[in-house]
């Protein structure tokens, strides 16, 4: 799936090393619930499980064909039409400012257009203000707050739950699509 010079492609074996480097970086790890240093063995086992899925749910986010981030979907329940999502940009070097729009746009577009999701939700640490603002901008609504929910760096952090419905995305989409036409 493409949006101008940005795209998302299913993860392949060749992406594993770079993805692990990003995932284990302090910048990314500090914002994840699972924040131990992931071994390559663990990472490969994860990939082998995901590779078996009939529908791709884990992607590299690309700028002009070069992987620069990750988009993923979990907790997918087709019967209820729900799914959770996550994303990060691992390599900001030389990326245009529109890349923030692009990764969020593609994440939503794939969920609602290809996965036929009815409701997409996301859990974000409350201290991760930038991602919360990005989600708000694209139409996510706050649905809940899990107070003192996750132990991180010796203290219990709040966890914000947000969600967007397919109809909400249909209304918001045109505002952002113009940047990639």
């Amino acid at each position, binding site marked *: 799936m493409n949006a101008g010079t940005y795209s998302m492609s299913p993860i392949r074996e060749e992406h594993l090393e770079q993805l692990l480097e990003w995932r284990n970086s302090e910048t990314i790890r500090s914002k994840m619930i699972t924040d131990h240093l992931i071994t390559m063995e663990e990472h490969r086992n994860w990939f082998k499980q995901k590779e078996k899925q009939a529908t791709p749910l884990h992607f590299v986010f690309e700028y002009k064909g070069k992987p620069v981030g990750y988009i993923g979907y979990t907790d997918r329940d087709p019967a209820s039409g729900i799914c959770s999502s996550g994303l990060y*940009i691992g390599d*900001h070097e030389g*990326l*245009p*400012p*529109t*890349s*923030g*729009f692009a990764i*969020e746009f593609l994440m939503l577009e794939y969920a609602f257009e290809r996965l036929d999701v009815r409701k997409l939700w996301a859990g974000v640490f409350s201290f991760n*203000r*930038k*991602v919360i*603002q*990005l989600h708000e*901008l694209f139409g996510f609504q706050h649905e809940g707050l899990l107070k003192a929910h996750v132990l991180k760096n010796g203290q219990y952090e709040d966890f914000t739950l947000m969600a967007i419905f397919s109809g909400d995305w249909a209304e918001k989409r045109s505002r952002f699509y*113009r*940047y990639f036409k």
Partner: protein
Amino acid sequence: MEQKLRTIFAESLEIPEERVKDELEYNTLPEWDSISHMSLIAAIEDSFDIMLDTEDVIDMSSFGKAKEIVAKYGA
């Protein structure tokens, strides 16, 4: 316009207004990366009731540049 824009920058990037000077540049501080840039753009568009061209979204690489761009839209 300049003070209004300064306030927008400070609120969107969650930095003190004193740090918002012409030399403040995109991707030179953790608070202003491609993720937060989008919130900044949206706040500018909503506050000044303008729709920025993609080229201007990309070119808005500093507070000084932002002033020039927003002025172009008659704000």
